[in-house]
């Protein structure tokens, strides 16, 4: 058997400079080659530019052109705005807010910008704007339900924000002053804003449980509650909720085992009602075996 050769066998393919593969183009040697090189690059740049223009055109069309009109849907002036909500905002207010001109054609309305405007309202949880051909614009919104209220100082001015049961803070729209007055004030929240937008309160679920329990257990007494201090609700050592009634009584709750605490409160309220004591200043329902009731001094009787 012949001795096998070792080493690299060279082939003409190894001599190709790879210029045609676009890696390192060999320098053109004639004016025709240079002209061709320019032509090839011009075509490539034109192709890239055309693809970019096409992409931008498609995006522009998606944003601005109403395909329903192009596709031949019958478009007439808006005759009805079908407004549907699960909250307090009324159709009239929404109309004045959106400022849809009378006689506007259904296809002339930019539903994307309408939705954007609606979603900008903090009270809106979600919204849907759609055209119902031939002449109806349907707006469906879902609102945050107020659970409590908070006063925030913004631009040297005190403003009322409401808090939903999901902990979202929002500015009230179409919610009557009477309804707002019925809501408990919340104190002890340090940063109700995250940047320029209102933040979400993380312990909203625990607070909601407390308020719901209070409303259901003793609605008459809940009616005299004025504020609740939640500064200690997340304390690791001694979590507390301090309620202040309209006549200045402080009631301290522990955010657990509400049944026991409300039974004690019920008993204390009934006992005070039956016996002529001084005005109560503070009730602490968090102790293990008993409850602490502090009365006002004699002179304030």
């Amino acid at each position: 058997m012949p001795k096998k050769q070792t080493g690299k066998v060279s082939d003409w393919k190894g001599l190709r400079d790879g210029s045609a593969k676009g890696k390192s183009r060999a320098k053109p040697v004639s004016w025709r080659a240079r002209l061709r090189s320019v032509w090839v690059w011009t075509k490539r740049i034109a192709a890239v530019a055309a693809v970019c223009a096409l992409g931008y055109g498609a995006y522009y069309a998606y944003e601005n052109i109403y395909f329903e009109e192009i596709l031949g849907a019958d478009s007439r002036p808006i005759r009805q705005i079908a407004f549907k909500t699960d909250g307090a905002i009324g159709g009239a207010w929404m109309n004045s807010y959106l400022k849809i001109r009378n006689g506007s054609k259904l296809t002339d309305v930019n539903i994307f910008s309408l939705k954007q405007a609606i979603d900008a309202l903090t009270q809106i949880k979600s919204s849907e704007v759609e055209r119902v051909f031939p002449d109806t614009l349907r707006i469906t919104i879902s609102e945050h339900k107020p659970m409590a209220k908070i006063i925030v100082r913004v631009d040297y001015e005190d403003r009322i924000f409401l808090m939903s049961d999901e902990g979202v803070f929002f500015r009230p729209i179409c919610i009557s002053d009477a309804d707002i007055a019925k809501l408990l004030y919340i104190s002890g929240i340090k940063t109700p804003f995250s940047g320029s937008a209102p933040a979400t309160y993380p312990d909203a679920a625990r607070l909601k449980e407390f308020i719901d329990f209070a409303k259901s257990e003793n609605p008459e007494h809940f009616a005299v509650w004025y504020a609740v201090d939640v500064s200690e609700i997340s304390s690791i050592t001694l979590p507390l909720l301090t309620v202040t009634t309209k006549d200045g009584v402080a009631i301290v709750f522990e955010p657990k085992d509400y049944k026991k605490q409300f039974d004690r409160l019920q008993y204390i309220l009934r006992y005070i009602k039956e016996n002529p004591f001084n005005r109560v200043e503070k009730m602490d329902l968090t102790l293990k075996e008993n409850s602490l009731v502090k009365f006002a001094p004699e002179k304030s009787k």
Partner: protein
Amino acid sequence: MSKSKTVAALEIGTGKMQVFLGEIVDGKMLNFVGSGQAMTAGVKKADICDVVKAAARAQAAIVEAEKSASAQIKTVCLGISGTHIKGFRNTGSANVSGADAIVRREDIERATEDARSKTLAEGRSYIHRICSGYFLDGKYCADPVGMRAEHIDVEYWMLYGDNEKISDALHVVQSFGLEVEHLVFSGIASALAVTDEKQRENGVLVVDIGCGTSDYSYVKHGRTVQAGVIPIGGDHITNDLSFGLQLSRKDSERIKIHCGKATITEDEKSQKFWKLGDQQIGDKKIPMDAINKIVRARLEELFLLLRDELDEFLIEDGIREIVLTGGTSNLNGICELASAVMELPCSKGKFASAVQPCLRYQEYATALGLLEYARREEEVASAKNTGWLGGMFSTIFKL
């Protein structure tokens, strides 16, 4: 859906740059779609000596071809020739590994690897490594797979060239932003164009006599057994006439074309040919015999050199006939002379019926052969990519 590919065949010759554009459909059908031609510059004896000039002319021919076909090409099948091209025979061997002594594909692969793996001296690269045939225990076999033998030999004809010259040829194309898909020795390409399957099976020697060199290719059993370059071409005859008859090169070329004959009869010997043809002062009569002697001497030298190169195949009666092609093969009586020297029947190249009549010229043999070579390679490639999945993958990879 039919798959179409446009390919260009470029022949960088000593006399002209020839570009043919062909459309290969499904790797089976070849349609001629355009052509371009330019006078050569920067090429001597088929070797590129001035890349810039050669590239300019080649690119002019490519542009002309593209314009004639209204198509833009990306890949080129480049024909190469020149005195730097040499060849040698290398045999690879392997013992049949199976206990049943049946030749398997692995045995052939081992022998092939042995034959192909010979390294060249520094500065040289292979252009072709062509399998000339298989031998089982010393006997020729067309397809050895499944045959019974103890030993298998594979013969390869290794055609190589000078790195610098090959790079120059490649650069002519690549500097134009085109890719060289196939680099083909002109002699092999010409053989594809002017012979048919039967001739290639029986054993044919194709000699492409060009301007600067003569490329030959001996094909037997459908395989190229030997190919090479003889450094004699039509320009040598012109030069000889110029020196011998004291004529300008231009007149010598004209005389060669119009009355150059490789063999003449006794009657023709006494004929005379006017140098200028106007029979005025300065014109002179040149005896036909003198012209014939000069032409004949050079051509005899060519065929004798060929005979020396292919001596072993002449003795063994391997070559059945000679086919002459290339521009110089248009000389009258050249076939008779070749037949007398080589002692074999000789004829001029005949093109396949598919070739358009306007292209059936011996000068175009190489360019037409290059297109045919590209078609065959495409056919092999498409046979590998069978099935819609393979086709899809190949399309994606091409992208």
